[in-house]
């Protein structure tokens, strides 16, 4: 029964990872930039929520109303200023710029909020759980996080597949020059994609903060988890990202079931295994690039 429980908890944990990963996946898909500051931006969102809940005395879910737009705006500005310029400066520049940004955010947070461990208060709701037969119980919060992740991924999929904005994103990603000839301003499309991505980052940061604890230096770890979820699932596939998150979550909880210190390691090993035997990811049939 403990093993079944580990799998169930792993799936729920995977929901958080999928939520982390979809922003990374979207920015890479549209801009071809791997945002190395992704994890630190997630932590930044969690700390913003700490400030908002502290200042107005509202629950973290309400803080979403403030933090999501703030991060989306930050994404828009970031794209229009730093990232767009770095795109023009060659292949290495975006990586160097986002890595520099990651160091700046992480250490600024460390300076302002100290290295203390934080959590977002959730009250009785945070510990309430739903019994599902046997000894199994799933936390409401964890379940809602997973549902939010699925909803966000479905929403992104819908935007990309069905809307004019999504069409322009796909066009800009496939062939920026032709897209510009057709009258698309690629800078705007890029900025919109980054804004959406950072909106999901805000969601991920707040849900992570409600589920567990965080510190200013957690960012790199979150970036690695998001990245593993993306690669395990397969680059460029949003549903793959969800599957990748779930596989990573299960690997970690099953590993931790063997011995607590093996959790993160087991996740890394599953990632390396996928890289070795199925580098295109679980949900992609053949690599197109």
């Amino acid at each position, binding site marked *: 029964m403990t093993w079944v429980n580990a799998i169930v908890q792993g799936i729920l944990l995977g929901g958080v990872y999928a939520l982390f990963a979809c922003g990374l996946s979207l920015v*890479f898909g549209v801009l071809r930039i791997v945002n190395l500051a992704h994890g630190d931006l997630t932590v930044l969102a969690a700390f913003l929520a700490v400030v908002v809940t502290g200042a107005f005395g509202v629950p973290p879910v309400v803080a979403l109303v403030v933090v999501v737009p703030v991060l989306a705006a930050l994404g828009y500005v970031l794209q229009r200023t730093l990232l767009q310029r770095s795109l023009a400066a060659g292949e290495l520049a975006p990586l160097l710029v986002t890595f520099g940004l990651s160091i700046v955010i992480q250490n*600024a947070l460390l*300076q302002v909020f100290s290295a203390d461990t934080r959590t977002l208060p959730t009250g009785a709701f945070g510990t309430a759980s739903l019994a599902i037969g046997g000894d199994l119980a799933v936390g409401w919060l964890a379940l809602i996080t997973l549902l939010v992740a699925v909803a966000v991924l479905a929403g992104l999929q819908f935007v990309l597949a069905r809307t004019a904005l999504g069409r322009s994103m796909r066009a800009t990603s496939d062939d920026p020059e032709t897209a510009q000839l057709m009258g698309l301003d690629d800078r705007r499309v890029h900025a919109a994609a980054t804004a959406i991505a950072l909106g999901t980052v805000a969601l991920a940061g707040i849900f992570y903060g409600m589920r567990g604890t965080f510190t200013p230096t957690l960012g790199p770890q979150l970036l690695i988890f998001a*990245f593993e979820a993306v690669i395990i699932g397969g680059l460029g596939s949003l549903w793959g990202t969800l599957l990748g998150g779930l596989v990573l979550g299960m690997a970690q909880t099953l590993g931790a079931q063997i011995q607590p210190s093996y959790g993160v390691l087991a996740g890394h090993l599953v990632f390396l295994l996928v*890289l070795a035997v199925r580098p295109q990811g679980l949900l992609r049939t053949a690599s197109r690039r």
Partner: protein
Amino acid sequence: MIISRSTRGSRIAAVLVVPIVVVLAFGPYIVPPSVTRALVTLFALVIMASMWNLLAGYGGMISVGQQGFIGVGAYTVLAADVAGIDPFLALPLAVVVAAVLSLPTTTLVFRLSGGYFAIGTWVVAEVYRLLTVEIGAVGGGAGASLTGLGGMPPVLRGAVVYWCALGSAVLVVGVVVLIMRSRLGLALTAIRDDPTAADSLGVRVRRAKRLVFVVAAGGCGLAGAIIVLDSLRVQPDSIYSVQWSAFMIFMVVIGGLGTIEGPILGALAFFALQQILEPYGVWYLVALGVVAVAAALYARRGVWGLLTGTHDIRLFPTGYRVRAQNVRPRA
């Protein structure tokens, strides 16, 4: 027409480098131990920067996981110490172990490219760290101290560590110069500029990249070994810290990516900044990040590029130059 490798700059450099190294070699006799210890740190930084530059500037591979090999090198020295081998003799061993471990690493991370390659190397470094923490014999998560050098007088130990570090730094820079002068260097330059074109011209892209990755891993292993010989203590979280990668990137980007001189200059600049800004605590890292972002966007050729401007000055020339000979009109 005259085709030559040396330039005026390189002839001046050749005249200057030897005396500088000789003077540095007499360091322990001239300056107090506190200064030689600081210089050991500087030499380790020069090694790291040169290796990261070889990877990114010449090999086109941005790695954020070189701290994995720094850690492996450091722990090789510690393991040798536990096994009763002289820690100084373990220096070459650290290079070999790091280089050997990098081979299976390449088969995995070479399946990724660009930014995903960067994070892939990082995951591998994390795996090395998590595996090291599980080994109780080298102290597990708490780390351990080097005990084999306890019998040595501190002044002598400091001097020998200093000479090891100086020798290693000279060796590493020399290896980079030699690589870039060889066929491999030419292949790397071609790959960096256009991998597809290089491949179609018969350059074995993957093999060249793998060789570079292995050399860079060995160099970082050496740097890790020097760090542990200097500090006499290893702690997994700090030796495997991604901060080393941040430092390497900073030094190379500030100094000038894709030059031999840049990383050395970058290491000097970083070392100076570290000494000046350290009292300001975490803000100094924030400043480093801001400077790195600015350099990546506005000064892409780094300090070396700013210094040399449009002149093609090379202290360590790797290519050939063609000059027109002075042809006097016949009377």
